[in-house]
């Protein structure tokens, strides 16, 4: 009964999730390599957007540091890829990003609103330039070669990271900490005064979301075979998750997943079909969505499902 008193979102039954995952796991068995590689890009964006939304969704702290966490994962693979087995390096990539996010969290989560956004973006850029400088001055390189991994292995690894991120997102959304994060987004001062350890909760959630970004970075590095700071810490990795999450809707984990998947697919279709007008079309679609669907695609689904009543 208490469930009816909450704003908690209803989730699809477990069976449907399981079925969808089995379906996705079977894709490399029949699909063309091109399709699997396309799915890799889509999955990468889905993971980035979903993990971004784990923290930024409920708390409304807009982080532009995703590129930093992703890039740390990329560099972890570039540096340690030949020395350790693949799963271990991916774990390292996530762990390093987690630690960086803890550190950044303690520094930046005191800031609110615009200051937080600018600071996360600035820190991300700072890390990019720091690594560029370190590479140029100490290792004498600009870029690095990365171990190659078969595209279907990349696909399965991304699928596993996606699954873990999704489970984490659901677990947080259903727990009391999810409710507390929402409270922080609603009125942080009030949350603090009813006994919520706001700083610790924000920092740990921020770091958890960074873990998945780092892991995704580590596996994606293998697909590029050559990386440099401009590729690994591309600011687009910070901006895209925000746009994709807005596109899909931030209310629950389905929004970011849906938003990222369609957005990435759309980008691919537009670049291949309309190479000259793709940016123009892309921009127009984005503006239309923001103007007419303020709560994203998810809002559209909700409106449709409410109509018959």
């Amino acid at each position, binding site marked *: 009964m*208490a469930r009816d*008193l909450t*704003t908690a979102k209803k989730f699809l039954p477990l069976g449907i999730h399981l079925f969808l995952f089995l379906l996705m796991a079977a894709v490399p068995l029949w699909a063309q390599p091109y399709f699997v590689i396309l799915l890799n890009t889509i999955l990468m964006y889905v993971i980035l957007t979903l993990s971004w939304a784990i923290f930024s969704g409920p708390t409304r702290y807009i982080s532009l540091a995703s590129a930093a966490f992703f890039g740390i994962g990329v560099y972890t693979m570039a540096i340690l890829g030949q020395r350790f087995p693949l799963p271990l390096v991916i774990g390292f990539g996530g762990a390093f990003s987690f630690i960086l996010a803890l550190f950044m969290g303690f520094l930046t989560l005191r800031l609110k609103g615009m200051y937080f956004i600018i600071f996360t973006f600035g820190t991300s850029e700072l890390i990019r330039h720091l690594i560029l400088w370190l590479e140029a001055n100490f290792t004498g390189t600009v870029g690095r070669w990365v171990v190659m991994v078969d595209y279907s292995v990349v696909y399965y690894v991304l699928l596993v990271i996606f699954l873990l991120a999704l489970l984490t997102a659901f677990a947080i959304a259903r727990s009391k900490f999810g*409710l507390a994060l*929402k409270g922080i987004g*609603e009125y942080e001062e009030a949350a*603090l005064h009813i*006994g919520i*350890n706001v700083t610790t909760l924000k920092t740990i959630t921020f770091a958890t979301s960074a873990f998945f970004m780092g892991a995704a970075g580590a596996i994606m590095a293998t697909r590029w075979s050559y990386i440099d700071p401009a590729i690994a810490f591309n600011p687009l990795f910070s901006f895209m998750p925000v746009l994709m999450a807005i596109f899909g809707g931030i209310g629950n984990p389905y929004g970011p997943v849906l938003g990222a998947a369609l957005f990435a697919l759309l980008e691919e279709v537009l670049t291949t079909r309309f190479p000259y007008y793709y940016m123009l079309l892309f921009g127009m679609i984005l503006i239309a969505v923001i103007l007419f669907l303020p709560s994203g695609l998810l809002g559209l689904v909700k409106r449709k499902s409410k109509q018959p009543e």
Partner: protein
Amino acid sequence: MQLLLGKGITKQFGGLTALYNIDFHINEGEIVGLIGPNGAGKTTLFNILSGAYPLSAGTTWFKGENISRLKPNEICRRGIARTFQLIKLFGNMTVYENVLLASLFGASESVSAEEAGRHALEWLDFVGISAAAAAPAADLTLANQKRLEVARGLATRPELMLLDELMAGLNPAEVAEAMKLVTRIRDRGITIFMIEHVMKAIMDISDRIIVLHFGTKIAEGTPKEIAAHPKVIEVYLGV
């Protein structure tokens, strides 16, 4: 027994001294009123007690423990709850969720989800807004939003409740209801320290009143003593 004790409480904002060298105490089971003209430092004192502001000088003790350096969440878990002069609710969350969150996080030891839920509903019932449990908090009337803030504070299981202008903006009937609510909270064994501008309310229900003026304590005593205090009359009436 002294529940809360403050000695030499001083707060400066840059060059401005908002509170200067205030000594006071609250006994267990009392209703203590805090009055004073606008800008006297009443809310600043509450912000210090609840941990929102650090002290410039002085010390506060709660049940014998020095709480001067604790953060608001730590102070809440030790048993001091508060409401705000300008309501600070989780507007897009339901009334029930507002109180549930306090029940889940405000207690000194962790509670199960079921127990927290039951506890939240009890306090909603206590303040008389359980019928609105499923509504978004922002949709309530001002009087009910104030009740919700009280319920949220109570759900953290406090021994001391700081009420900041609970009655401001309420009509006479609502003020009477609010006064009844305050005494009912005290009857539950919760001590009350309240800022109030509605003089009738504060005079009727306080056991003791503390008067602040320009950041210093100018008087303290029973409502009768305060009403006859020459300094208080001077401050309020300017004669």
